[in-house]
């Protein structure tokens, strides 16, 4: 028996070391030699802990195009290009259902800029407005027949005495769209030092551009983004080579850069709307990690102390099993690549409380067997066998609840379900196998009486 206990304890030690290695990677294999590195918990953190944005976009039907899954996929590719330009590390972009796109942007510094960039249709149009110059901010109606002028803008020069109308009839005659753009760069105008966007058209577009400008010198070519006028320059000369610039409308170089990003990524084939946005600033994420870590330590300490006070040496053994339990849960989470969220940490802490439950059940059954007059060895065997059934049963209910939460919950709640269920499963293992080995081990080294004393305590 003694040697078998020894083997079991050794196996548990191996398990402990493996858990530490998986969760904290103290050893990395560089080349062929193992290299020590500082202990650090290897865990994916959810957006609520590291800060970042979760966005759900919904494709909108327009008279021109319906939000079919194909159109949404095409929009997704455009959004991928835009997100790449934002420099987000490990973004997630996936389609959700028929017409939604789920975007996760971890650790993003300026979520509002990202949302503005991602959600913009960014349909650039060069519109022939003939002799009419439109002010910046004027907007075309969706059907492209009328233009609404911005507040405070002067109406286009009308010689008559009629008061300027807020909405004027003007058909949108599109010469070219942003689809013809080859590239776009932000820069500064050499004369005015204003921010501008330089663009170059593909050869087909360049030809159209050249022909149009040649035929319309002295008239206006209005540049429109998502039906809103950016600028309405006069054509001074024929423009060959497909090179041009968009000026006006940019207050800062960043605005010009954002437009360049959008133009390079292309327009969305269908407009999208942000239907869900959950953003956690980096500061709150850090605070949450700090606070929940502190809470976890306090919880562990409180539970450990309770077991020690109530069950004496057996409690210490249970505490050891509990420590191994925590390491193993972390290892399993890390090994599975699970994402730790704030409710996930709460689930972990909750599972610590529940993990003790298995030990309590075992100790109470052990107590009864000892009181019934069995020897320690017999009592341990009988107590465990009776306890296993109860432990499995009592955990099934929690597992049912977590399974439902996992299947139907989203994001953080799913994290809660994952940690709680893994916690419950691991706790069964540590209580049934590890605590047993520790109790047997203690008995083998002559601590039997101390373990048996559990029966004398708290008798009612």
């Amino acid at each position, binding site marked *: 028996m003694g040697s078998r206990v020894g083997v079991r304890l050794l196996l548990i030690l191996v398990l402990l070391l493996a858990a530490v290695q998986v969760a904290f990677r103290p050893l990395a294999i560089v080349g062929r030699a193992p290299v020590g590195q500082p202990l650090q918990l290897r865990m994916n953190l959810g957006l609520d802990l590291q800060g970042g944005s979760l966005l759900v976009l919904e494709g909108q039907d327009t008279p021109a195009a319906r939000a079919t899954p194909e159109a949404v996929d095409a929009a997704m590719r455009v959004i991928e290009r835009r997100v790449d330009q934002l420099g987000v590390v490990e973004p997630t972009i996936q389609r959700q259902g028929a017409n939604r796109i789920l975007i996760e942007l971890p650790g993003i510094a300026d979520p509002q800029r990202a949302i503005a960039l991602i959600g913009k249709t960014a349909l650039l149009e060069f519109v022939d407005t003939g002799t009419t110059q439109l002010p910046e901010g004027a907007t075309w109606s969706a059907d492209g027949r009328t233009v609404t002028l911005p507040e405070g803008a002067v109406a286009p020069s009308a010689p008559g005495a009629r008061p300027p109308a807020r909405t004027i009839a003007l058909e949108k005659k599109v010469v070219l769209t942003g689809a013809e753009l080859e590239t776009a760069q932000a820069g500064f105008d050499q004369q005015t030092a204003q921010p501008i966007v330089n663009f170059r058209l593909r050869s087909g577009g360049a030809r159209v551009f050249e022909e149009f400008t040649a035929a319309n010198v002295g008239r206006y070519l209005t540049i429109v983004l998502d039906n809103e006028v950016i600028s309405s320059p006069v054509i001074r000369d024929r423009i060959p080579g497909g090179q041009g610039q968009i000026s006006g409308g940019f207050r800062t170089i960043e605005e010009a850069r954002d437009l360049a990003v959008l133009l390079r990524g292309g327009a969305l084939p269908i407009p999208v709307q942000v239907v869900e946005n959950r953003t956690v600033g980096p500061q709150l994420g850090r605070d949450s990690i700090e606070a929940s870590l502190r*809470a976890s330590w306090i919880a562990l300490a409180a539970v450990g102390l309770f077991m020690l006070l109530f069950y004496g040496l057996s409690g210490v053994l249970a505490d050891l099993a509990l420590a191994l339990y925590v390491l193993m849960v972390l290892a399993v989470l890390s090994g599975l690549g699970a994402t730790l969220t704030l409710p996930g940490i709460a689930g972990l802490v909750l599972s610590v409380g529940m993990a003790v439950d298995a030990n309590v059940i075992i100790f109470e059954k052990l107590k009864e067997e000892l009181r019934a007059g069995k020897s320690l060895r017999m009592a341990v065997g009988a107590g465990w066998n009776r306890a296993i059934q109860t432990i499995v049963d009592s955990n099934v209910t929690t597992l049912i609840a977590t399974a439902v*939460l996992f299947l139907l919950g989203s994001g953080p709640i799913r994290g809660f*379900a994952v940690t709680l269920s893994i916690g419950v499963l691991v706790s069964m293992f540590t209580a049934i196998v590890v605590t047993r080995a520790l109790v047997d081990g203690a008995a083998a080294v002559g601590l039997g009486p101390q373990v048996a004393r559990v029966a004398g305590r708290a008798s009612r």
Partner: protein
Amino acid sequence: MTPRVWDIIGRRGWGYALSALVILPGVAALIYYSASGQGALNWGVDFTGGSYFQIRTERPATTGQVRAVVNRFATGQSTIQRSEQDIFIRTRPLAPQAREGLLAALRSEFGTVAILREDEVGPKIGQELRNVAILAVVIGLALQVVYISFRFKGLRYALAADAALLHDLLVVLGIFAITRKEVNSAFVAVLLTVVGYSINDTIVVFDRIRENLALRTREAFDRLVNRSLLEALVRSINTSLTTILAIAAVFFFGGVTIRDFAFGLLVGIFVGTYSSIFNASALLVDWTLWADRRAGRARAAQDVETGGATPAPVPAGAGPLPGEGGGRRRRSRRR
């Protein structure tokens, strides 16, 4: 054992009364708030759709000052709350311009405004999340009920456990109605966890009852249940104590973001333990005694010979396979 036995079952009326004392105000609050149009529970943006901001301002701001600013941009009812340093704003869905305007106005009033957290849920998504939440609770509950029925192979145990479960859910809902704490997606996790925990606790007690019944002592059912309760009591209390200790640490030290979640778990685990000690077994006893009396009357009318042979009624629904007729058969075999 010790001469003085704690008689929980004997005083089960107190257990019921205490439960009623907690549940009735909660139910009253649910009805009152529902009737007054504020919503039975304080639904968060997850379920109603809307915008939620957690901000930290440079200059101190009272909820009244913030409300004045918010009301300029948000239509309908908004909720403003604050903790030591943060302000929480909940509004109906805000158009992008209104959002920009609100933040600009807050900045001009209170200096730099750091947005710690922002949730924006479209009305459609809110409705979907609500449906999913209801579905989750219904499926979770149904599965648990199926599990109990399967586990106890008998209606009586299953229904007693379900009643205790319903009790726990009512308490948690009621307390959230009274305290007006926000009910969001995380609350679904609270409910289901409480359900799992409550049943777990009840099962351990019922298990003990059946274990003792299998020993076939000639004990009265209510005495036997009381003894089983006491035997399982240390475990019940110790387990919920450790769990409550752990979750209390999250409640007190885990930060504002998770406080309501931890609060729900705390309440739920506490009542889950309470109901499995004071209600579930008590219901089982009441039902069994009632069924026994009825069976006894029927038997006395039918068959006077085997009638009052046992002074203390041995429970009818007591065996591992309780059933209306089964108990009687087994009993006659036992003699």
